């Protein structure tokens, strides 16, 4: 008997941002993301408290994916950051921190939210315009003729996640591997429609990082105990192996039987019927001269036996993630039915070998036109491996974004401080026409711009976790860190060493000041005309596309959160 309960009325909260619980939750979240930022960021243990897997991480995707935030305001924030991450992989923490600081700083000036929104949109667009213009002083164009800039980009991403537990040698080794893998996915001949290949990460846990390697083609691990029964593959011609790729289970079960009761007469076995169907399929595969059958799921032992007797190699349980690169690499259509195989769905391989890397055995599938490569990724334990894998994927994605838009932003906090100096200067010299257009006073604009700049500078400050002090110079507007507790009368230039991105060394004439302290606006100068830019080895760089998007997402989301006046929650 079902019981009908009366529906509860919805809960409506007005002005959610003024509630203590919201501002408290926001400050906890902002504390978490801020403390994770940068190469010296602190790590978080993420677990369910009941003996589940412990993840140690400082990655936004893992953190936000693991957090179970309950409040709608927080949900809104995490959802937009997660969406940014899913599109760009990089700059998730930047987006989250900037968004949190914007909300905090805008709340403090306590204006009508529509005014703040209008002004901050204008500020955002001037930022984006500046970043995209040739005059931009904090970006570099990436030169694909040399790998230096690309390596710096990859190395900066690796260095920003300390939970990978890489030392210097290992970090540069992995950076080179990532770059190598990326280069293997670029087609040799450029046509109008360039499609990048795929890099598949092959997990090898509990091994040393230095045992990682990149190979063209696809590697699929062979379970130790299957080694005994390997035989040479059947070929159509000397350089062609016909293969079939199945994305359904060939285990002989009745997975597609549907819902509802099925009644079978005694003496009839559905299993036998399915197995017969499988064996028929096997017969057709053998007739079609297929040499290799790959299945995403399980193959029935009897079918395996049949195929083996006819010298067909079977590889099963390769997993969903392998299906796409396999089909891309071999040109085979993933088969999703047990009957009506069309000969067009078969693919071809150049060669199939067995190889032995890091004391494991692999099938090495070598395609005719190599666009797929395998990165055997090793790390000492599961946790560090997870972190490293994610970083590698991010780096690969960033390289893909960079090839589309060959620009990079200065990292290490320099872009943020530079941009803040630019906005400060820009807002102090605003024409009245613009003020009229957005319908606000000069003071209002100035206050919002200050909050905006404070938020940007706050992101840069989050890079420091060991009680150092942050300075900025009045020439380039870059980021400089110094030990705290220096005497007030000392010479700044004795304290600083290098700016955050590593472009500038200590120069006498740079005129430093403590970041976030009031100073006279100046036009920050550009770095791109420096001849030494591309010669410097260890630059810290950020992905241009991802950071621009992060900036936009942060401002838009902050505006959205400030604009919230009611929350209506369904209580049922």
């Amino acid at each position, binding site marked *: 008997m079902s019981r009908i309960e009366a529906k509860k009325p919805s809960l409506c909260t007005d002005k959610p941002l003024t509630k203590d619980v919201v501002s408290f939750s926001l400050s906890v979240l902002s504390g978490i993301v801020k403390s994770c930022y940068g*190469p*010296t960021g602190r790590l978080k243990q993420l677990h369910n408290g009941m003996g589940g897997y412990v993840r140690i991480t400082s990655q936004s995707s893992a953190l936000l994916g693991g957090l179970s935030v309950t409040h709608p305001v927080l949900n809104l924030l995490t959802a937009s950051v997660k969406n940014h991450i899913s599109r760009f992989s990089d700059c998730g923490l930047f987006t989250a921190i900037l968004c949190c600081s914007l909300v905090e700083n805008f709340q403090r000036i306590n204006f009508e939210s529509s005014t703040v929104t209008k002004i901050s949109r204008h500020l955002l667009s001037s930022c984006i315009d500046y970043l995209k213009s040739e005059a931009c002083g904090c970006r570099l164009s990436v030169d694909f003729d040399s790998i230096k800039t690309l390596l710096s980009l990859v190395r900066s991403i690796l260095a920003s996640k300390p939970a990978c537990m890489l030392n210097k040698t290992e970090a540069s080794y992995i950076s080179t591997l990532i770059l190598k893998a990326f280069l293997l996915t670029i087609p040799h001949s450029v046509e109008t429609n360039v499609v990048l290949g795929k890099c598949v990460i092959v997990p090898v846990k509990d091994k040393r990082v230095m045992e990682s390697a990149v190979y063209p083609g696809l590697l699929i691990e062979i379970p130790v*105990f299957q080694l005994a*029964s390997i035989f040479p593959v059947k070929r159509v011609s000397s350089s062609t192996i016909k293969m079939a790729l199945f994305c359904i289970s060939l285990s002989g079960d009745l997975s597609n*039987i549907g819902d509802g009761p099925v*009644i*079978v007469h005694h003496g009839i076995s559905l299993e036998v019927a399915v197995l017969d169907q499988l064996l028929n399929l096997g017969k057709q595969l053998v007739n079609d001269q297929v040499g290799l059958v790959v299945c995403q799921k399980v193959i029935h032992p009897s079918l395996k036996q049949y195929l083996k007797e006819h010298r067909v190699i079977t590889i099963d349980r390769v997993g969903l993630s392998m299906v796409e690169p396999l089909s891309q690499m071999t040109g085979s259509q993933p088969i999703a039915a047990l009957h009506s195989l069309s000969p067009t769905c078969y693919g071809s391989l150049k060669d199939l070998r067995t190889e032995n890397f890091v004391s494991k055995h692999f099938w090495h599938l070598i395609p005719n036109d190599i666009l797929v490569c395998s990165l055997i990724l090793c790390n000492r334990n*599961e946790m560090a491996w997870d972190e490293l894998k994610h970083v590698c994927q991010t780096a690969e994605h960033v390289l893909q974004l960079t090839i589309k838009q060959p620009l990079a932003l200065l990292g290490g906090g320099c872009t943020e401080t530079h941009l803040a100096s630019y906005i400060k200067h820009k807002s102090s010299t605003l024409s009245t026409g613009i003020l009229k257009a957005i319908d606000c006073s000069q003071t209002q604009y100035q206050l919002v711009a200050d909050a905006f700049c404070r938020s940007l500078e706050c992101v840069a400050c989050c890079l420091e976790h060991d009680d*150092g002090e942050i300075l900025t110079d009045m020439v380039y507007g870059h980021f400089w860190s110094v030990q705290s507790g220096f005497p007030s009368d000392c010479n700044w230039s004795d304290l600083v060493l290098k700016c955050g991105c590593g472009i500038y060394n200590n120069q006498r004439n740079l005129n430093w000041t403590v970041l976030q302290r009031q100073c006279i606006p100046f036009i920050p100068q550009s770095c791109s005309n420096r001849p030494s830019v591309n010669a410097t080895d260890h630059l*810290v760089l950020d992905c241009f596309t991802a950071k621009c998007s992060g900036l936009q997402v942060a401002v838009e989301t902050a505006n959205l959160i400030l604009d919230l006046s009611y929350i209506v929650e369904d209580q049922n």
Partner: protein
Amino acid sequence: MAFRNVNRRRHIGLQQLSSLASIGRTLLGPVKSYKFIVDVSTSESALTCSAVRLLESLDLTSAVGQLLNETIQAQNKEYKTGMTTLLFLVGAWSNAVLECLQQNVPLSLVVSVMSEGLNSCSEKVKCLQLSVHDLYKGPKSVPIHFSSRSLGSQITENKVPNTGSNSFLNPLGNIIKDIPVSKEECFPESLHSHQASPCDPHDRCLNSHLCISDNITPSLVEPVGNKTMPAVLGSSLIASNFNKRTKLTHSRYFNTPEKSHCPLQTDNFGSAPIRPGACPYEFNDFGQLAMALSHGNQSSMKLVQDIFRCQQQIAERKGSSQFNIAEVVTCCLPGLSENYSCVCPGYITLVSPEKATVTKQLRDRPLQILLIDGDLREKYRHLGFNRPSNVSTISESVALQESSSESIWINCALDILIQSKVNLILVKGNVCENLMERCILNNILIINPVTDTVLHAFEKGIGVQLVTYLSQVNSHYVGSGVWVDFWKTLELDNKVPVSIKAEGIHLVTAVLCSTVTSKMQVTEDQFWTCAYRLYHALTDQKVFPGGGAVELLCLSHLQKLEEQSLKQADKYPSGELHMSSCWLTKSLTQYKSVVLKALASGWHQYLSRVMYNTASYESEFEASTFIDHHLKKATDCSSPSSYILKEFNKGIKVMDDVDLSIKQEEALKIYDNVTSKVEAWRRALDLVLLVLQTDAEIITGPKRNQLLNSHTSSEFTFV
């Protein structure tokens, strides 16, 4: 979501780590103290002396505990040795790091200096590596002697009196003296029955498994820096009568029962094909290497050596000369005297008496074998087969009962087996009871459960493939030429050991026996540890001199780095930090020596603990003074590494007041594995630094509400 800050004042995570690791201190070194783990709720208890088993048995609910366990398990999975070292260093380094934090060293600096320091040490110690090739001239040097059983052959050569082996490079050689326990306390009555040394009946021989009784072979002292170390070849280990006594003699709990087995009854079980201890130790390179890697477990290492010999015999025909650890299995026979421990080609396992009667029928003739990769039950389906829940069968006739489907299946199965003339079936999983009974009636022997290793050894050996279902069976899947027989005429707990052999099979079984049932697991673990030490030494093709040589070099290297860092106070070693631009680079010199000292203190504590545990020293402090003494000598040397190698070769003579009664005993050579040791260091430091950099614990999921109501709720922030 609940959120806890773990970095307030003193780092909670590191404190947890250090206290967890401290439980493993007594497990370090060749002389271990056993531990009892008692479950209060069920009163179940376990005996253990390895870090892996200890952590496995503990209830590690904290996140840090889990991380520690994962790290230890990962090392175990990959190397099977070095876990105790790892555990100890985790503790020592967490304490050292806590010390640094108290001195206000910036956290990020601790991380980068420590990891760079370890890196530099790992590079440095490479110069101590000894090539296995030089120590061991290949498989040809392994003598094969199955029958020789002449006892007590003494190998005494190059006898140099007064070569005191007291050394911390050779802690093992050291044990017999300086032990402040009276003989009576330690060995009630048993020692008198077999006096240890002919020279001195009152020799306080605590370390029974050390062969230091009457056979003494001092090593040659070789010139400094000779990396091939011929001196090693000169030294020898002797299988004394005491080898068969076990480690348990050191237990505070089990002293006497074990002792009663000590009197030597070597020849009672002469039928074993290869007997450890029974054959005298042959003077050869390979044996030296193996024994030097045994770290006190000579009896286990002897078994490993025998396995190697056994494999060599087979390889002679097959042309491979590697130590094939993948085709070794163990068979544990608890309750039997250790004298039964031995190595047999083929597969040995225990079967029930009913199966024993079948065995009796089947022995002495070649059998047909079937290998089943799964269960032998009607309802069993292979992995990945999903049974539909919505299918029901209706039957028109009443006669067909539901229960009959099983009997139909059994009849069918039996038909297949009889038709294909199968006598012996190895099954990976369970077997339907009724089928088992019917098979016994039909003189078909079913052995289950059998590990993958065994199944695939048979698959490879007799060239027959595994099947999952009986319906797959045809003549291609039935192997022949397999022999089954009883393994000795024993009965244990109503079970009988049988051996299964076949031509061409490489499988070797190590039969492990222990009179004390609770020690069985320990014995098995020790066997595998020895096996893997030898395996890694042969795969790495290099070993470290053991007994603290490597750690001592690290200490001296760190001292050198420290001095360097103080000297070049004004230079910034660029690129030393990931972020060379940071102010930390600038203040590196200020803190570097403190952090390097902390790193060194880990190894220092490790060494003094090992020496203290081996009972050479009355206190860790005394041991520590001794280390400092040698460290100074090494550092004063122009080349610390050659000093250390030299000392290793001769065994440092330190104490002049060596008890005269034991002047004859000789230093054992001890070797360590290279990769597993360096990896254990790295993993230990990685864990410490990972926990150090963690500042918060985020607990997700349903646990939140529990925490909210618990007494610790004030520590958490709930979002």
